[in-house]
């Protein structure tokens, strides 16, 4: 069928191809419903550019459980022999991914790499897509991906991948159906009523084509009838061949067809001539996958089982490296060969896991558990544990708990203490992920009880470190030190670097936020990081950076915090350790919020919230940052964000999630002058804080509690600057906040001072555009009888043409006087960094590149007299 109404898309692809040819790689997603003509369009494009580029085409299959890296196997045979060998033997997929990039990089001609039907892609392929698309711009490669839009719902993993790609180098092409006019034209040419054909097909090219192919007289009631009417009138031998090909998803290998149907060469030829079957160098396939599906679905169950059995027997007899295990499992399942299914699934699962296709590994293990009947209790226990682990990696925590519990019961029956203890420890970890602290701690303690036999085993060391981690997460310094200390001692004895690294991280993290233990905390955590780097423990490296960053932000050591977070984010981005990257970004947003860099904070938090699939701990952080910003700026939407954060944080029972939400809500109460809302989470925060002694959370919470209720709240653990502020020494507090570099908190301290201080606070709040907060302050000032309250930023900004803020104009005046930055800082009671910030804002607003020119330009505009 000729390609109609597709010139625009082809031109789009040609444009992208020209960019690629000039060295700037690009990714394009071609999406549309089944039958819309994605493949036809791609083929037409490939035909146009075929002789001047290297083209590689791979496809994903609709198996019960897809083959890990399926499309890569398709293209590997056309890449170098080394790459093909690597793909077959390598178990570290990072090597596979980087080798592919190298292959693409070394090609002399531009490369067009096509992955079709990626809505069926396995997890490893999705990771590969992300890996490649993020690096594509450096390669001379056009990466084309097609998928069926109707199969990719909002929560499909492909959506997530697409959301995480750089916008500049990604294009999305929605393939539209044919227009009514074209359908009319085609129909009339074939002697049908255009209106009727369009009503049935809605312009889907495959359907239009099937109906107009004149299989029967008149128009069938539906498309299926149209296909089956041809099929049912076929010669029995042809029918049998079609049925056989139809039970294989997507396509059949030439050699395989020759084995299953050796005498059908003549029949095949006829089918090719009619255009129903097509062939390339390696495969034979139906002209369209929809055609195949309609035939497969029309098969009777016994016939389908028999056909699958035929294929399975041949595939098993000729175990070919080209035939992936996933396909064998598929046919074994369809043939109801339970023992074979179990055996193959057990073989396929670890292979999928080693390639990073954990979703598929978990599915294979589920299949194995369902079909296995001859396993010993030990084998069964191991199978359940492997399943639990893959489920844990793919965030199916309840399934993981279920399987791990079964493994535990089996080990218990066998009275195998080490296995039992280890299973208990992992259950504890799983319950923590599920957000259930109580269960988590119960199992953690039980694991230790089972493993405490005097023997210094690895299992026992892990159990100690696990409990230390739980205590660290709930900020219980005494307990974390107790169990962490035991883990460290044992790890030294066992010379086990990994446990040592894990335990030092837990102990270091909990110490870093306590003024008295701060030194030790830094040392331990950095030691943990060094061990992790020396040994190449990626997860431990990520965790060390994360905890360093979050602790430094919490203790307001922003320079160290920024360094740790930026190093950590760079490390994790390089390796696609996304969940760590996002969690660290949520802390970076908080850091910017506290430093008064609100645009940066809002941009990070907004990006994080746009992806609904981020885990609670990432979301809570971003919600609090953005909620506080909107609240302080007096904008709508703050409450919705903080309410969502409340729901997510409540079930964690962790101080580090709950207290930030509670303090944001206390601030909300204060700004809006209400006293009696959000009691539940605020009380919960208060209770949790009584059980531990993290001074920073205690201080922040009590400070806002005091502010919103007016009740005194001085406790021993409260640290400066909060302490001075709560003791009424607002000047000292202001000085400390200024030294720390926290403008908003500085304004809060000043607002508790005299009239002069309050006016300074208003200036700072105007700088921050915190009109929600400044309104509250003005109200307070009016009530205390202050008359001349400054008008505030918006008006004064509007009066000057370059939209300079009051503060920036102050700085300009001082620049005009010829003052240096330090002198300006001293004069305006702000930090050196803030002066830098103001000057660069002035330069950019006035569009000049030096302070001299800024003064000249401001004079010209009449801002300076």
């Amino acid at each position, binding site marked *: 069928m000729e390609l109609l109404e597709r010139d625009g898309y082809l031109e789009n692809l040609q444009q992208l191809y020209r960019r690629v040819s000039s060295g700037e790689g690009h990714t394009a997603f071609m999406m549309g419903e089944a039958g819309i003509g994605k493949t036809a369009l791609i083929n037409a494009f490939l035909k146009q550019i075929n002789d001047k580029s290297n083209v590689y085409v791979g496809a994903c299959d609709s198996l019960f459980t897809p083959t890990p890296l399926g499309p890569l196997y398709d293209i590997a045979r056309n890449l170098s022999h080394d790459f093909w060998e690597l793909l077959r033997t390598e178990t570290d997929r990072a090597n596979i991914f980087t080798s592919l990039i190298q292959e693409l990089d070394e090609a002399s001609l531009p490369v067009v790499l096509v992955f079709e039907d990626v809505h069926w892609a396995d997890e490893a392929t999705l990771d590969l897509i992300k890996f490649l698309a993020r690096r594509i711009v450096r390669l001379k490669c056009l990466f084309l991906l097609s998928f069926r839009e109707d199969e990719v719902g909002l929560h499909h993993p492909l959506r997530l991948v697409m959301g995480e790609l750089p916008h500049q180098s990604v294009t999305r092409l929605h393939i539209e159906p044919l227009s009514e006019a074209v359908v009319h034209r085609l129909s009339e040419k074939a002697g049908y009523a255009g209106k009727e054909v369009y009503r049935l097909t809605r312009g889907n090219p495959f359907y239009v084509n099937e109906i107009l192919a004149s299989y029967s007289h008149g128009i069938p009631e539906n498309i299926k009838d149209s296909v089956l009417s041809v099929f049912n009138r076929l010669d029995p031998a042809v029918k049998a061949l079609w049925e056989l090909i139809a039970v294989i998803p997507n396509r059949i290998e030439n050699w395989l067809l020759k084995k299953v149907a050796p005498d059908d060469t003549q029949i095949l030829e006829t089918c090719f001539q009619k255009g129903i079957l097509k062939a390339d160098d390696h495969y034979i396939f139906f002209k369209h996958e929809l055609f195949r599906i309609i035939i497969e679905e029309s098969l009777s169950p016994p016939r389908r089982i028999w056909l699958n059995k035929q294929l399975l027997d041949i595939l098993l007899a000729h175990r070919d490296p080209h035939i992936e295990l996933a396909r064998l499992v598929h046919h074994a399942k369809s043939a109801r060969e339970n023992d074979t299914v179990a055996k193959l699934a057990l073989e396929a699962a670890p292979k999928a896991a080693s390639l990073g296709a954990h979703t598929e590994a978990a599915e294979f293990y589920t299949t194995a558990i369902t079909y296995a009947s001859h396993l010993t209790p030990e084998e069964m226990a191991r199978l359940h544990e492997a399943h639990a682990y893959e489920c844990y990696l793919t965030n199916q925590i309840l399934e993981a708990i279920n399987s791990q519990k079964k493994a535990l019961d089996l080990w218990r029956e*066998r*009275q*195998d*203490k*080490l296995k039992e*203890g280890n299973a208990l420890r992992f259950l504890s970890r799983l319950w923590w992920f599920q957000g259930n602290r109580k269960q988590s701690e119960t199992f953690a303690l039980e694991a230790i009880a*089972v*493993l*405490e*036999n*005097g*023997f*210094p*085993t690895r*299992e026992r060391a892990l159990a100690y470190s696990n409990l230390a981690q739980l205590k660290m997460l709930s900020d219980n310094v005494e307990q974390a030190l107790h169990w962490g200390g035991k883990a460290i001692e044992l790890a030294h*004895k*066992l*010379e086990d670097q990994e446990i040592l690294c894990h335990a030092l991280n837990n102990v270091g993290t909990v110490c870093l936020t306590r003024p008295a233990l701060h030194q030790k905390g830094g040392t331990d955590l950095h030691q943990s990081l060094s061990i992790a780097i020396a040994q190449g423990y990626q997860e431990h490296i990520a965790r060390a950076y994360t905890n360093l960053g979050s602790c430094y932000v919490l203790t307001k050591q922003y320079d160290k915090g920024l360094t740790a977070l930026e190093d950590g984010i760079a490390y994790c981005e390089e390796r696609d350790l996304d969940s760590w990257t996002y969690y660290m970004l949520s802390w970076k947003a908080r850091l910017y919020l506290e430093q008064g860099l609100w645009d940066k904070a809002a941009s990070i938090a907004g990006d994080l919230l746009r992806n609904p699939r981020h885990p609670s701990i990432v979301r809570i952080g971003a919600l609090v940052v953005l909620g506080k910003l909107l609240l302080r700026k007096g904008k709508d939407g703050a409450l919705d964000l903080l309410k969502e954060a409340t729901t997510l944080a409540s079930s964690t029972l962790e101080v580090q999630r709950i207290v930030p939400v509670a303090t944001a809500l206390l601030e909300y109460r204060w700004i809006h002058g209400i006293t009696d809302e959000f009691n539940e989470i605020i009380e919960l925060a208060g209770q949790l804080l009584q059980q531990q002694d993290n001074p920073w959370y205690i201080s922040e919470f009590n400070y806002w509690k005091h502010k919103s209720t007016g009740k005194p709240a001085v406790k021993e653990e409260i640290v400066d600057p909060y302490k001075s502020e709560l003791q009424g020494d607002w000047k000292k507090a202001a000085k400390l906040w200024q030294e720390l570099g926290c403008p908003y908190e500085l304004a809060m301290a000043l607002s508790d001072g005299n009239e002069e201080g309050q006016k300074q606070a208003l200036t700072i709040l105007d700088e921050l555009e915190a009109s929600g907060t400044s309104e509250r302050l003005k109200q307070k000032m009016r009530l205390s009888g202050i008359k001349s309250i400054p008008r505030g930023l918006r008006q004064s900004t509007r009066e000057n043409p370059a939209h300079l803020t009051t503060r920036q104009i102050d700085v300009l005046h001082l620049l005009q006087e010829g003052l240096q930055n330090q002198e300006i800082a001293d004069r305006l009671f702000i930090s050196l960094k803030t002066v830098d910030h103001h000057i660069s804002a002035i330069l950019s607003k006035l569009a000049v590149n030096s302070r001299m020119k800024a003064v000249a330009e401001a004079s010209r505009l009449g801002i300076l007299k």
Partner: protein
Amino acid sequence: MKKFIIERELPGAGQLSPGELKAISLKSCEVVSGLGKPYHWIESYVTENKIYCVHIAPDEATIREHAKRGGFPANSVEEVKAIIDPTTSAY
């Protein structure tokens, strides 16, 4: 009943504290009494990185079951075929 030498690899065994040695012994005795089979723990020699135990049991499987239930390593289990000492030279 047969006599066995069990080798348990235990880095730093020589530094185990009296408390830890007591915990090991308690656990071992507890498992012995719960086995439901005749089983005798004769004695154990604690060296720098290994513990060598002498146990009497019906078979190797029971020795391994004892280790499993106690959570002890049993890196090798060898049956004692004969015992010799300086007096053996008198024959």
